[in-house]
């Protein structure tokens, strides 16, 4: 065992301070914190766009936005939230920080590549923000041809931004897979790895194999815009459906890149706060990888009404139902983990249970969209909007905020205020469900998505949804202020505040520069809790 240099056992926040040291650091913990800060900023930006057009939708008439501004706002909300917040989200922020700690390594396999990934993320983000100024991008985050072939400069800049953000996502996935294969601590076999890492592995597979197809789609769209080669442009003999195939071949695995890390965090928090080994460890681990594989064969369910051949519709509908099985296994296993546990309802656990509620609704509303006859009615209505917000916001972001609270003592060495945390958790729960459950009803009643003007009968649903969003925003800001406030008035966090058994809790809070004073030897599984002596 190579003992590392003695001088480096000051914690990673204080060793080499100064902006320059942070900007050129190769320490996975600092890169994780910088990602976390950027992602939270973009989450607020994307959220403000949503807040503004939700206010606009208060009545069917014009409040303060013109139809064009409304279209730009929902496009920016979509692009910022998908490419800048939820796709990089959990892997880049928490994954970068926690993965080396949980496998007992000093750092990721390629630290410099990790910094390159961060800079590519910032470059993509800068170009995305520049596209707001460079014109009005109003083609939705799905950029369907032929509407996106209108040589609108802002749209072209947004495609370039998505290209760099995709590349940054590939490098993160690459780093994670290599680290998990080669740099596990002695004694840590694949089945002694925490489930958060299994989720990171499944996400890595999807990032590596799906994102390049997005790169090609964007290159083809850019060339189609500049030269009109006629692959996607119907007026030149192309086929807009081919663009939808290329786009959704990436974008469906992308929605699993979004939600699978959320599963990983939920497994960690539920096991830790019920002091009980996860129920059916191998089933939960394999279901993450199974979702990653099945995610590649189902993209056609986005195109049931788009004019796809009936045979393709039937095959995609048949395969889409198989994605329900791993999700059902996970939900049942989490519920079974609570049985005979010792459940402590701290803030992270509140977010994990809230995740369970939201993901159950998200999963169930997803399966109905796979039923062919019903999807013809429900496609492109608010029902679909509510489904993917239940999964992307209700499951992923709630698990992300729960994960930030869970690892906050480890990341910053400070404890956040527990009561304020709980209030924020309840506000987020009530606000989220008020906002999006009514959209399910509105959608199945036939209200299309991306509508600036709507029928008067839907006004009550829009108003409840907007009020719900206000409560949700208050909850999120309370949580944010509570976390940031902990830097100043938070108590000093012990090494293992929650009594969890995974490896990162053996390091100090906040960890030293090379994570562990000496490399830990793993002798037991990630959730080996003792039982009560009767």
């Amino acid at each position: 065992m190579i003992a590392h240099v003695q001088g480096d056992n000051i914690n990673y926040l204080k060793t080499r301070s100064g902006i320059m040291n942070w900007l050129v650091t190769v320490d996975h913990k600092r890169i994780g914190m910088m990602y976390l800060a950027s992602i939270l900023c973009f989450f607020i930006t994307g959220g403000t766009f949503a807040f503004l057009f939700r206010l606009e939708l208060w009545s069917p008439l014009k409040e303060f936005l013109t139809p064009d501004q409304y279209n730009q706002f929902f496009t920016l909300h979509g692009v910022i939230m998908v490419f800048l917040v939820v796709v990089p989200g959990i892997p880049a922020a928490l994954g970068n920080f926690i993965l080396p700690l949980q496998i007992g390594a000093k750092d990721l396999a390629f630290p410099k590549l990790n910094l390159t990934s961060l800079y590519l993320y910032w470059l993509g983000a800068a170009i995305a923000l520049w596209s707001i100024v460079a014109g009005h991008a109003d083609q939705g985050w799905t950029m369907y041809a032929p509407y996106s072939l209108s040589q609108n400069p802002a749209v072209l800049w947004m495609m370039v931004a998505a290209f760099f953000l995709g590349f940054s996502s590939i490098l993160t996935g690459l780093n994670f897979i290599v680290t998990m294969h080669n740099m596990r601590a002695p004694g840590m076999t694949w089945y002694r790895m925490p489930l958060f890492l299994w989720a990171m592995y499944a996400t890595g597979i999807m990032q590596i194999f799906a994102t390049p197809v997005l790169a090609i789609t964007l290159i083809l769209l850019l060339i189609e815009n500049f030269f009109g080669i006629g692959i996607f442009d119907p007026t030149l003999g192309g086929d807009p459906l081919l663009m939808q195939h290329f786009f959704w071949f990436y974008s469906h695995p992308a929605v699993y890149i979004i939600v699978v890390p959320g599963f990983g965090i939920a497994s960690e928090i539920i096991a830790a706060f019920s002091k009980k080994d996860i129920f059916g460890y191998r089933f939960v681990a394999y279901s993450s990888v199974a979702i990653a594989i099945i995610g590649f064969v189902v993209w056609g369910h986005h195109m049931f009404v788009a004019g796809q051949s009936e045979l393709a519709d039937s095959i995609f509908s048949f395969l889409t139902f198989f994605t329900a099985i791993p999700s059902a296994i996970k939900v049942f296993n989490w519920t079974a983990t609570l049985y005979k546990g010792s459940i402590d309802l701290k803030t992270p656990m509140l977010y994990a249970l809230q995740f369970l509620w939201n993901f159950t609704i998200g999963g169930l509303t997803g399966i109905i969209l796979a039923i062919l006859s019903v999807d013809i009615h429900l496609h492109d209505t608010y029902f679909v909007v509510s489904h993917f917000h239940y999964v992307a916001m209700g499951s992923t972001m709630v698990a992300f905020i729960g994960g930030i609270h869970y690892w906050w003592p480890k990341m910053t060495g400070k404890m956040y205020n527990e009561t304020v945390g709980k209030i924020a958790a309840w506000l987020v729960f009530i606000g989220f469900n008020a906002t999006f459950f009514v959209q399910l009803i509105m959608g199945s009643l036939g209200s299309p998505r991306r509508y600036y003007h709507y029928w008067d009968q839907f006004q009550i649903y829009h108003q409840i949804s907007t009020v719900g969003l206000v409560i949700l925003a208050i909850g999120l800001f309370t949580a944010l202020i509570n976390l940031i406030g902990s830097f100043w008035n938070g108590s000093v966090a012990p090494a293992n505040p929650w009594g969890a058994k995974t490896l990162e809790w053996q390091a100090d809070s906040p960890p030293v520069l090379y994570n562990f004073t000496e490399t830990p030897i793993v002798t037991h599984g990630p959730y080996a809790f003792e039982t009560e002596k009767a």
Partner: protein
Amino acid sequence: MDNSKTFWLPEKASTFVDIVDPAFNLYLYISYFFFFLIIILVTVFTIKYLRRRPDQLATAQITHNLTLELGWTIIPLIVVMGLFFIGMKGYLHMRVAPAGYMQVNVKGQKWAWSFEYPSGAVNDTLVVPVNTPVKLALTSRDVLHSFFIPAFRTKADVIPNRWHALWFQATRTGVFPVECTQYCGTNHSYMLTAVKVVEADAYSEWLATASDPGKGKTPEQFGAILYTKRGCSACHSIDGSKAVGPSWKGLFGRQENCGAGGMVMVDEAYIRESMLSPTAKVVMGYQPVMPVFQGVLSDREVVALISYIKTLK
């Protein structure tokens, strides 16, 4: 049978209703069952096993139970396979039009629909007889649109340069809204029209008058009908307010600045040219988005529109 709106689903007005609604309601009960199963289990476990003492440990480390695991793998599998066949069977009904359908061509363009009947009638709302299968051949003149009738539970994307088919059979008379559900630009949410389901004899009566709209009307009156029927109203106002296109009020005889085309006197020739090849001379400050009406408008219709514009002082 009560055809009105339920909590979850809009009003019922087509044969597809008894394909989609039973499947929707069946699934609703399945999801209520699974959702409340999970939520009740979680609440019961949380209350029963709440940690009373800070150092309280779990009462038992049960980590796996194969029969349970296989149970919640096989049962959802059977449920979803059943759902697949229900959906599949219904879907085939909704795609294959029965014999003896009546066909109408639908043209979607940026923010207006136009319906062309085989007899030559053109209308901006779809008028169909009740209880007869109607097949729509949909195409778009510019970008993707989608033709959605919530009351009929049917929807189909409208793709440029192709005919996409959609059929339905209305079961009761009435007026049912039609919406565009594929994002198509600024007035995507105003791209609305309606399906008017009438009795068979009323339909044939309407068809007779609609097939030759100009008959017995002065060119100005015919022009006024065409103003709405051909979707001109979607972009040109007649009260002077600036919309996507210039307003027709006081247009005739005015000097317009067409940028590269220089100053142009708005006379009959200019209006005719702007209809048949609109991007020739575009007035300053307006987007060249007007669709080409060459081959769409007959000569009598062009004359009628011009004379109608003349009347708008």
